[in-house]
């Protein structure tokens, strides 16, 4: 599933500032079909800003984002976003099934087809039993699964996730990480996951984009040759994993000392 030639998502020289405050400068990377790319950087580096630019929610001031070769000006149809704050991203007045169904309404599907897709998406995240529950009747981990199901239901090619597991407990987090690897393997969807957690980035990614500096740019793009079938315990004790984790850690430490932006190595 790794790095197949044509990129499905390209960020090309993304720059973004809010007034005088430049947040991103010349951010460039690409995501191949089926690739799992993690964007890692310390809090406040502009990861969320980058994600909003990638997804068309907050267009960049300079550079461009391309999805399947087309320049993104508003959220493209082949892209779905999972937000950090799951408790606010699900509608509390709708049962989980209705939440998942909501984005499907525009597709002009029959009622039956919509139902099938909802059931399928919920099964994909192991929530087959939860269709009739309200979001607030579920745990945080289940709510985030439901949000993921809503994104999967309309079958996107790219899933963009903003610190999706930041507010769940460690065990749930590990489960959700494995779920995302499994979803990528089964559905072939490309995933871009933004996180401040280096361990998470290395464990999940085929490629880790290290974001740092102020304004932030790509400090490094690190291929993670850990293969498929990763395991929370086995993978995380392999020397290659530990080495990559340390290497990225050093990059972030070193980079955050310097203030001036540097060109990203390509």
């Amino acid at each position, binding site marked *: 599933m790794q790095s197949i030639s044509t990129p499905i998502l390209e960020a090309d020289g993304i720059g973004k500032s809010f007034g005088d405050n430049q947040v991103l400068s010349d951010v460039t990377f690409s995501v191949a079909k089926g690739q799992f790319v993690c964007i890692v950087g310390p809090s406040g580096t502009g990861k969320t800003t980058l994600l909003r630019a990638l*997804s*068309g*929610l907050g267009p960049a001031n300079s550079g461009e984002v391309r999805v399947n070769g087309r320049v993104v000006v*508003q*959220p493209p*149809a082949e*892209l*779905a*976003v999972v*937000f950090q*704050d799951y408790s*606010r*991203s699900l*509608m*509390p*007045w*709708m049962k989980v099934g209705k939440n998942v169904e*909501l*984005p499907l*309404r*525009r597709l002009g599907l029959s009622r039956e087809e919509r139902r099938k897709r909802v059931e399928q998406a919920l099964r994909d995240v192991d929530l087959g039993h939860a269709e009739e529950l*309200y*979001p*607030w*009747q579920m745990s945080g981990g289940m709510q985030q699964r439901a949000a993921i199901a*809503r*994104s999967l239901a*309309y079958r996107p090619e790219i899933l963009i996730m903003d610190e999706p597991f930041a507010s769940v407990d460690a065990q749930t987090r590990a489960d959700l990480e494995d779920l995302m690897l499994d979803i990528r393997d089964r559905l072939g969807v490309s995933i871009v996951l933004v996180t401040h957690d280096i361990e998470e980035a290395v464990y999940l990614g085929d490629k880790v984009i290290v974001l740092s500096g102020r304004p932030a740019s790509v400090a490094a793009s690190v291929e993670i040759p850990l293969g498929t079938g990763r395991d929370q315990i086995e993978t995380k004790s392999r020397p290659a994993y530990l080495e990559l984790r340390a290497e990225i850690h050093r990059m972030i430490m070193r980079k955050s000392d310097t203030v001036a932006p540097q060109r990203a190595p390509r």
Partner: protein
Amino acid sequence: MTQRITRFLLPAIVPALLVALWWMASAGSTSIFFPPLAKIWQRFHELWIFDLVGEHVVSSLNSVLIGLGISIVLGVGLGIVLGLNDAIATAVGPLLQFMRYLPAVAMLPLAIQLMGIGPDMRVLIVVLGALWPVLLNTVDGVRGVHPALVDVAKSNRLRPIDWVVRVVVPSASPQIFAGIRASLAVSVILMFASELMGASQGIGYFILETQRQFSLPEMWSGMILLGVIGYLLNVILLLVERFALDWHRESRS
């Protein structure tokens, strides 16, 4: 189980005690202004169960329910439009606040001049007062939709109709209901005021007439009836709200 009984009985105890107190204290009363409650109750029974209901109660409820109904439809409809259009909302904001604080009773003389003392005039007066709380609350509720939901809607490319009907309106509904409750209270007041000045039927008219004829037990019975009706309307509204906003209560507990 005992807890449920307590919760049901507790709010009834104070009114029951007060009625008992009133009943005993007024028992031997010879004052024509404060007749014995027993006497009031007797007249209440004779008049309102159900002799005059058709003449006065139906007329009053008509003003309140039609007036409130129109206010809700107009207020929620306009409120959604204004709430979704920042420019229009900003432009008409001061006008709305002006209208809200202009007492609708101040327009009674003009309304009577223009429309006479018929039921249409009374409905108009109710609408002129009851529209604003529900309208302004709807605008606030619609504008207050959480930005996270805007992101969800955009990234999922929801159709505008789904966005409004399935996200904006439910999200604003707790505030819309608060507005409707305020509008109901205003409606009852305006129904009564418009009947004092411009009616030949209705509970307000009845109370004024009986006072003029020194039929004070009858007047008291009208006042009690008015209170009971207002209370019952509020109870009905609360039940509707409980049902409609079930998710809201539960999601916060």
